[in-house]
C-alpha cells in the first residue's frame, strides 16, 4: 500500500508540472463546459442541468487518454525499466495510476459543478452522492481501459491512433455530444454496447431524476465489472519494456474487457428501457415525467 501511495503522489506531482495536462484536463473541459452551457443550453439552468451529464462524462472519460499515453511514453523512454529494478509489482503501477487520477480529475469535476451553480444558476443537482459515485467509478473504469490500451500498444503513434478511434466512438455514439435520443435509431442501438452510453445515462439520471446509486444497479454493476476486468487484464499484460513480447492472445484479452457491455448491450437492445428513459429525459426537461427508477 505504501508503494502505491508513494507512486501515486509522485505521479500527481509530475502530471501537474506537465503543461499538456493543464490543457487537456482543465482548459479543454472548461471550453466544453462553456460551449455546452452558453451555446447549446443558451445559459438556461434546466438545459445546463440536462447537459451536465455529457459535460462531466467528457472530463472523466478523457482519463484513459492521459493514462495510456503516460505509460507508453515511460515504457518507450526506459523509465519503467528503472522502476522494474525496485521491488514494485505491476499491480502497484496500475493502482497508483488510477489513484493519482482521482486527485487529478475530481477537482475539475467539482469546478464544473460550481460553475454550473454560480454562472448558469443551476439549483437542482439531483443526487450529488450518486454523481460522485459514478465519477469515481468512471475514473477507475476508463483509467483501467487506458491501461489495457497501453499494455497492447507498442508506440506512441499506435496508442494515439487507438485512442482517437475509441474517443470518437465514445463521445459520438453515447449521447455525450448529441443526445442519445436524437441519434438515428441504428446508432442508438450501437450505442447500447458502449460503456460511455451507460455512464452518460447514469449521470443524467442522477442529475435530473435524483436517482440513487443503488437505483442505477445495472449501470453501477457493469462499470464495476468492467473496471475490475480491465484492471485485472492490464496487470496480466503489463510490460515494463518495449522489447517484452506480448502473449499471443493478448489482444483477444484486451478485447475481452468489453464483455460486460457486449452482454449488457444485447440485453438492453432486447429488453431494456434505457432508450425510452433517455428520450423522456431529453423531451421532458425538467424530468419529473421520467419513468420510475427501474434498477438500470
Amino acid at each position, binding site marked *: 500500500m505504501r508503494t502505491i501511495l508513494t507512486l501515486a503522489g*509522485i505521479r500527481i506531482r509530475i502530471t501537474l508540472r506537465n503543461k499538456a495536462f493543464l490543457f487537456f484536463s482543465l482548459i479543454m473541459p472548461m471550453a466544453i463546459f462553456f460551449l455546452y452551457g452558453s451555446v447549446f443550453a443558451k445559459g438556461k439552468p434546466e438545459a445546463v442541468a440536462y447537459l451536465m451529464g455529457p459535460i462531466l462524462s467528457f472530463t472523466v472519460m478523457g482519463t484513459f487518454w492521459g493514462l495510456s499515453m503516460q505509460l507508453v511514453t515511460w515504457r518507450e523512454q*526506459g523509465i519503467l525499466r*528503472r522502476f522494474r*529494478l*525496485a*521491488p514494485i509489482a505491476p499491480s502497484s503501477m496500475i493502482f497508483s495510476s488510477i489513484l493519482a487520477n482521482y486527485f487529478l480529475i475530481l477537482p475539475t469535476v467539482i469546478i464544473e459543478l460550481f460553475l454550473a451553480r454560480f454562472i448558469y444558476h443551476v439549483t437542482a443537482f439531483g443526487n450529488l452522492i450518486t454523481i460522485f459515485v459514478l465519477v469515481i467509478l468512471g475514473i477507475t473504469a476508463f483509467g483501467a481501459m487506458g491501461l489495457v490500451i497501453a499494455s497492447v500498444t507498442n508506440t506512441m503513434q499506435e496508442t494515439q491512433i487507438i485512442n482517437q478511434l475509441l474517443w470518437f466512438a465514445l463521445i459520438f455514439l453515447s449521447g455525450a455530444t448529441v443526445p442519445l435520443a436524437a441519434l438515428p435509431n441504428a446508432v442508438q442501438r450501437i450505442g447500447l454496447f458502449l460503456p460511455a452510453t451507460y455512464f452518460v445515462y447514469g449521470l443524467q439520471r442522477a442529475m435530473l431524476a435524483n436517482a440513487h446509486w443503488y437505483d442505477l444497479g445495472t449501470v453501477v454493476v457493469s462499470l464495476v465489472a468492467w473496471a475490475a476486468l480491465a484492471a485485472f487484464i492490464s496487470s496480466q499484460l503489463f510490460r515494463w*519494456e518495449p522489447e517484452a513480447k506480448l502473449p499471443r492472445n493478448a489482444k483477444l484479452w484486451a478485447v475481452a474487457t468489453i464483455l460486460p457491455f457486449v452482454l449488457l448491450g444485447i440485453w438492453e437492445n432486447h429488453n431494456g428501457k434505457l432508450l425510452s428513459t433517455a428520450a423522456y429525459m431529453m423531451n421532458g426537461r425538467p424530468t419529473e415525467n421520467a419513468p420510475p427508477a427501474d434498477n438500470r
Partner: protein
Amino acid sequence: MANPILQVENLVKRYGDVEAVRGVSFSVEEGEVFGLLGPNGAGKTSTIEVLEGLRVADGGRATVCGLDPQKNPNELKNEIGATLQATSLPDKLRVGEAIHLFAGFYKRRRNTDELLKRFGLEEKRHAFYNQLSGGQKQRLALAMALINDPRVLFLDEPTAGLDPQVRREIYGIIEELKREKKTIVLTTHYIEEAEKLCDRVAIIDHGKLIASGTPRELKQRSGDTTRVEVRLAQPAAKESLKQLDGVTDALEVDGSYVLHCQRTAPAIVALVKHLEAQNNELVSLEIATPSLEDVFIELTGRRLRD
C-alpha cells in the same frame, strides 16, 4: 572460491535465433569488484540483466545472495542495486524527489541526504531530471542504486558515453565503494576501466567467456612480453616477423603488426634489418607493456573496440 555471493553456471540467453549468452560460468566473492569485459554485443548486458532479474535465462543457473533471480525477484531486488546502460527518469522529476521516491520502495534504506551529499548532488536537489548533465545523471543513477544499501551492486557500462573528466569522477566513486568492500559486478568495454577498478575480470566475446582472472594473471598470459606495434609501408609476411630475434609472436591487426617481444631492443634491431633486406619501410613504431587489450587481441585476433 570459499563462499561466493554470486554464482553463474552455464548461463544461456537467446533472442529468437540469436544466442547472446552461450554457457557462461563464473562466481564472485563478497567484497570483490568483478568486471565483465568485452566489445559491444558480446553478451555482457544480457548476462548482468539475467542476474538482476530483468531477463529470463534460457538455460543454466544463477544465484545472487543465495537467491534465484526468477524465483525470488522481490527478495533479490531488496538485496541488489543496479545502474542500467541507459537510465531514464521522468523529465519533470526533481533530483531530491527521485531519491526519496526510490527510497520508499525498500525495506532497508540509507539516509537520502547523505547520499545526495556524497554524490555531489546536494545543490541539484531541486533540479529537474532533464536539467542534469550526463555526469550528474550518472551520479544520480549511482546514488539511487545505493539507496537500499545493497549487498551486490551491478553497474552496466557505468562510464559509457561520458567525457574523460566525468569518467574519472565515476572511477573515484567506484574506487571509494571498493574501499568500503562493496561487492560490485560491472560491465565495460574500456580496458583502463577494467584494469583500474576490477579485482578480477572475465573477458566475454560472442556470448562466451574466453578468459578470466585478475588483470595481472590475464596479462601474464602474454608471457610478460612487451608489445611492439608497427606500421609498414608494404605488407610483410607474419611468419617472417615471428622468426626475428627476440620476437615470440606476431599478429596482424587492422593493417598493423603486433610483435610480442621478450627482448625489445634486439627485436627492434632485427626488425629494422629485416625491413631493409625486404626493401620495406617502417611507417610507425609503438612500444607498450602488455595490457588486457593484448590479451583480448591474442584470444580473439580483434581489437576490443571493433
